[in-house]
């Protein structure tokens, strides 16, 4: 490990050389910045990983079953396990997807599940991301670079190789394409904050990187169009464009990012969309509360991984508890993402607490409250070159094609501010490699 730390300048130079950046818009101006990388990896022992792996697979299987059910039979609502207010009134629910069965029956092909480890060692789920979870490319390239800069570290530590993520994605995309055509990654374009990831994953999976305007629908089938009037049939689209912008004829009419008539092709099953449309109904911060119940309902199993203790003001008992204890809870706006809309009661003035109470009273469905989880700190090397503890989470990537598999790595994000719990890159967070240790 010492060698790895002493080679961190070399590692950072390689990261710069490979252009490991993400874009941010500040005051309407696009800037690219390096994603701060910390050389001290998060290490997950083999036994702990096995438990995590089982729990993550279980959770994603339940979420996939939930999505099928919501857009077909709706048994979980009929049986009163999940209230209709959290499904059919959710912003992520898309009535256009009713009755559609996506290619191979998979909805959440790439799930990014955010976890934290509490100080007592328990892993708790913070959030499920089933639409466009990003971040896998960073630990992929970090591993490539650190192995290059410091080979002896990897010779002396039994770390699972994480460089097969591109192959895992390709295998899943091929399964979804089902021989109908090529795989493409659809990017909103060069100025998207995650463009590095789109292009890097295209390179590593061999998929064609498609930009707005490159795809057309003809006779109900999707084609990638080229020069000299050439075109190639598309079998699977790993889309990095949000649902509402995917097809201007079906959703947002002003969208220039989408493919006209794509919804029709998707409905007819001539193309696979990764992830499926309408997944937002299952990763809403409000529906998160019900995921352990889904595990029991669909799989008839006890959930292996637990949620962080969560309260829904929608339920009377929780509503009263939240209003009485708001100063010690974290309040989250279910409509926000990327670390925005998160308020810590302990940091708010009495006046602000009262304002938030009123907001909850006015629209209980919009909010959730969680106990503050005192999760473990991991050391980073700070600006002075010294180890310094920071809050970290872990985004695990779960891939579902023919089978559901967990990538033996993940994105460990840390807060750069020692007093903050917010780790999101859009708010200045950095990342670490995640080492899953072999037996």
């Amino acid at each position, binding site marked *: 490990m010492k060698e790895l730390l002493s080679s961190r300048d070399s590692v950072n130079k390689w990261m*710069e*050389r*490979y*252009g490991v950046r993400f874009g941010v818009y500040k005051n309407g101006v696009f800037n690219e910045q390096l994603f701060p990388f910390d050389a001290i990896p998060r290490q997950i022992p083999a036994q702990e990983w096995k438990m995590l792996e089982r729990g993550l697979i279980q959770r994603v299987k339940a979420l996939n079953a939930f999505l099928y059910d919501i857009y077909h039979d709706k048994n979980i609502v009929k049986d009163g396990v999940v209230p209709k207010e959290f499904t059919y009134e959710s912003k992520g629910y898309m009535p256009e997807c009713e009755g559609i069965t996506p290619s191979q029956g998979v909805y959440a092909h790439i799930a990014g599940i955010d976890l934290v480890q509490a100080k007592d060692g328990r892993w708790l789920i913070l959030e499920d991301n089933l639409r466009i979870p990003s971040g896998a490319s960073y630990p992929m*390239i970090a591993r490539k670079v650190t192995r290059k800069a410091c080979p002896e570290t990897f010779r002396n530590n039994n770390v699972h190789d994480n460089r097969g993520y591109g192959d895992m994605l390709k295998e899943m995309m091929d399964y979804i394409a089902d021989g109908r055509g*090529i795989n493409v990654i659809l990017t909103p374009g*060069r100025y998207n904050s995650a*463009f590095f990831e789109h*292009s*890097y994953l*295209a*390179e590593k999976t061999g*998929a*064609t*990187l*498609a*930009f707005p*305007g*490159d795809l057309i629908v003809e006779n109900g089938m999707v084609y*990638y*169009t*080229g*020069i*000299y009037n*050439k*075109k*190639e049939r598309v079998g699977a689209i790993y889309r990095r464009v949000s649902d509402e912008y995917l097809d201007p004829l079906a959703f947002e009419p002003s969208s220039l990012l989408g493919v006209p008539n794509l919804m029709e092709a998707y409905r007819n099953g001539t193309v696979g969309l990764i992830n499926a449309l309408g997944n937002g109904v299952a990763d809403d911060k409000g529906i998160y509360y019900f995921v352990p119940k889904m595990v029991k309902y669909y799989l008839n199993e006890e959930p292996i991984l637990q949620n962080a203790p969560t309260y829904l003001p929608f339920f009377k008992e929780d509503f009263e508890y939240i209003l009485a204890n708001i100063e010690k809870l974290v309040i989250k706006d279910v409509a926000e993402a990327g670390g925005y809309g998160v308020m810590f009661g302990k940091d708010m003035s009495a006046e602000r607490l009262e304002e938030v109470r009123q907001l909850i009273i006015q629209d209980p469905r919009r909010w959730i409250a969680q106990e503050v989880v005192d999760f473990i700190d991991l050391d980073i090397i700070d600006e002075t070159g010294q180890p310094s503890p920071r809050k970290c989470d872990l985004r695990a990537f779960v891939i579902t094609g023919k089978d559901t598999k967990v990538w033996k790595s993940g994105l460990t994000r840390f807060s750069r501010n020692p007093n903050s719990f917010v780790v999101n890159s859009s708010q200045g967070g950095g990342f670490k490699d995640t080492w899953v240790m072999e037996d």
Partner: protein
Amino acid sequence: MKKVLSAHIANNMFWLGRYAERGYQMMHLMRKAYDEVIDVHEGESPYSDFLEKLGGYVANNMTTSYQMMAQIYDPNTVSSLYNIIERMMDNAIVLRPYICSESCSYIELCRDFLKKKSEVKEMNITELQPITDWLLAFWGSIRERVSGSSYAMLEVGRLVEHIDMNIRFEYKHYRIDETWDRLKKYMVTEPDLFDRVQAGRFEMFAATQEAYTDNIKEHKTDMIAALNGLVKI
């Protein structure tokens, strides 16, 4: 290897080839111009001739040192090395899956290096030699990793730019002729890429040494225009 190239990817490849060659040529020409500047006094502005040939804005009332500085680092000087490398990056960044991260990395190196040198306003062109080295490495990486139509697009861009710069700086005919012959091979393998009328016009201007010598003074702009209309993307 990707089978079908979209129009904008083909365009990015062509322009990446052009800017990479322009950057390489610019480094060469600046070294040459810097050498000439050694023998003149401040105020004589031999550098203005160099800038004029590039077709950019010529700040005649500025000192030679100012012009040289602007030619390397100034974002507002269209032909500056800074702008050439930025345009290379703009094109390369969308081509990562086609040219690989390794090829992109050489352009990243050029950009980061120039940025660091701009902070100290490095004026000794010899200190910028790594840029030339990385551009050569970039082309080595391209030859190693890219093939088929993708390679053809990049190489056609490179050859077109090579001729363009040679004409601007009035190089001898044989230099243009050699490159033109190489470019013509792509008219066979990528026939739809070329405008035959413009190819014919260019040949009329530059097919023989006599024609070239006659036309380089009187019709330089037309020759460059024919060359720039050659590729249909």
